[in-house]
């Protein structure tokens, strides 16, 4: 009896009990699909966090005021920010961009759009915050000095206000003042949390102060270090300057000084990146564990179906042996059946996971980890093969009459 003939027997065996075959396939499908998709979700959320932080720029520091009352002595102003740009006291600082932000509504030819973040800053902000301009240009130092009302808008703003129209050069109204759009930002990949990173508008600091916020303290100061390895030094340098300017008592800092008493806070993107990616790693490990459990459960399901069928198949094997089937032929047939079911189920599981990963799952875009495909497929197919063929091999070794009497 040749191999082709045996394979035809296997196909017939698989199709003879369609429900059983379908259940086995489904068990493997779910096991494989769940593992791949869960790992992909974990990986995707980790990627999202790193992307988000990388989007901030890894060699930037953000200085924010912590005092709520806005006592004039501790408020961070444009002057405070300017003081940070000091080649002698702060040699590792490349650029300093004070930032004021407001929410504002932009109007263009009757259409209006309420922009989430309306930012006033220096041109260095584009580089420091990693928000390059896509079309048109950024504004210049001179624009800031002159307080020119020019505007760079994010992708979302451009799509909302200028559907199918070139925004650069258009005149829009913000808070009753006329601004000229000079550029559109490149699309930012990750949306940070509930905020749309592309729903921004950036204008010269002076123009925003004039029209929207007034000349009070700034919201934050974005400081760019000379390099990603100079971040810690830059942080120490600007801390010294700030302590000096804001008259923070350094006397008590040695023992038990309350960090909350400091009127400012410096956020370090690379530190953030580290802690966040650690969290993301934990998350991936957790999801991996869940995936492992689902693989186990799927495996038990497969095992169960395979074992439940053993009684019936053992009798069948007894009949086949009684009719003159050699052990080898029976083994080949059952191995082929198990292979077909496992591979079909595994393949469909991979396909299901690939399709599922195209959708956003709980706000996360899954990113497939190739090794998880290999692992899930390998384990499920191995389980299917093992439990599909081991009982068969045992039954094939029995005397026909014992196999026929098996209960």
């Amino acid at each position, binding site marked *: *009896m*040749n191999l082709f*003939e045996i394979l035809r*027997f296997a196909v*017939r065996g698989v199709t*003879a*009990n369609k429900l059983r075959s379908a259940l086995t396939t489904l068990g493997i499908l779910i096991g494989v699909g769940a593992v791949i998709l869960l790992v992909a979700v974990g990986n995707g959320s980790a990627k999202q966090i790193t992307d988000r932080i990388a989007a901030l720029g890894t060699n930037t520091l953000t200085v924010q005021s912590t005092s709520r009352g806005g006592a004039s002595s501790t408020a961070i102003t444009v002057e405070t920010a300017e003081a940070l740009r000091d080649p002698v006291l702060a040699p590792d600082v490349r650029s300093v961009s004070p930032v004021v932000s407001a929410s504002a509504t932009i109007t263009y030819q009757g259409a209006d759009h309420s922009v989430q973040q309306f930012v006033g800053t220096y041109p260095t902000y584009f580089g420091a915050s990693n928000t390059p301009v896509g079309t048109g240009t950024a504004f210049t130092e001179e624009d800031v000095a002159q307080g020119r009302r020019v505007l760079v808008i994010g992708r979302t703003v451009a799509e909302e206000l200028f559907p199918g129209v070139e925004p650069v050069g258009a005149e829009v109204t913000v808070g009753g003042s006329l601004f000229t759009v000079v550029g559109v930002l490149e699309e930012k990949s990750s949306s940070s949390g509930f905020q749309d990173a592309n729903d921004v508008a950036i204008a010269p600091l002076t123009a925003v102060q004039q029209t929207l916020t007034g000349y009070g303290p700034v919201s934050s100061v974005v400081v760019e270090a000379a390099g990603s390895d100079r971040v810690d030094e830059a942080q120490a340098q600007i801390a010294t300057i700030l302590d000096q300017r804001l008259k923070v008592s350094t006397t008590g800092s040695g023992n038990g000084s309350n960090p909350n008493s400091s009127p400012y806070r410096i956020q370090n993107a690379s530190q953030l990146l580290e802690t966040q990616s650690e969290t993301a790693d934990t998350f991936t490990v957790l999801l991996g564990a869940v995936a492992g459990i689902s693989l186990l459960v799927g495996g038990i399901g497969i095992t169960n179906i395979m074992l439940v069928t053993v009684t*019936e198949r053992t*009798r*069948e094997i*007894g*009949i*086949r*042996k*009684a*009719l*003159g*089937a*050699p*052990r*080898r*032929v029976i083994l080949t047939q059952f191995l082929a059946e198990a292979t077909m079911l496992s591979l079909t189920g595994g393949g469909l599981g991979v396909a299901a996971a690939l399709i599922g990963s195209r959708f956003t799952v709980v706000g996360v875009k899954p990113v497939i980890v190739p090794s998880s495909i290999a692992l899930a497929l390998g384990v499920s197919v191995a389980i299917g093969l093992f439990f599909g063929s081991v009982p068969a091999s045992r039954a094939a070794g029995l*005397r*026909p*009459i*014992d196999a*026929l009497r098996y209960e």
Partner: protein
Amino acid sequence: MIGPLGNGADDRSTGSGHPPVLDVRELTKVYGEGEAAVHALRGVNLVVERGDYVAIMGSSGSGKSTLMNIVGCLDVPTSGRYLLDGVDVSRLNDRQLALVRNRLIGFVFQAFNLIPRTSALANVELPLAYAGVPAAERRRRALAALDMVGLAGRAGHEPNQLSGGQQQRVAVARALVTEPALVLADEPTGNLDSRSTADMLTIFDELNAAGRTIVLITHEPEVGSRARRLIKLFDGQISADVRQDGPAGAGGADRMLDQPTATMERIP
């Protein structure tokens, strides 16, 4: 060649020069052990020559099926020797046993043992497939065998769509399709009405007339009386062994040709 069961007539010689088909010596079979041990066979001696037609009768539980399973190479005895065509079966390996079961013996189970969810035709084709017969030829012969037992119209039916008697006839067709030299049938007429029984016996008579050795188990005296030799089993031992002048004797096959049903002539 008349049909699938028609050749092999040259093997009709009864022994001279050939070893007996079956040679069973002091065969015992014990199921279980200790207190619960069941002595199903207690020293059976039996020699069956080529071309013989043997019926085994005996009360339920007397060990008929046990003996048949051992003779059919499906089970092994607890002690004693069993020579099949002069060969000690206990010395055969798995591959050789498979060959014996496939080529030499046609076995009809008391419980039919058809493969579930598989058509009657596929069930009958199965032994031919294991014998390596090409698909087209297999199909032709399987259909012929089904036709012989009067089930040509049920070829596509699965076992659970067939009546008990029809399943039994499929099982007979499956045992005969390989044209085995030795036919072992465990109550092949147990589920049949008198007319189907007569058809079935006709088939066996013709097979025997064509030189095949037949051993069948039965509870029905009229079936037993058709055989040339009647063996009675009682409590695991042979209690009677008589030669009889059954209709399957010398003129049997000729007489059968007069019957309208299930004759060999119908087989292409």
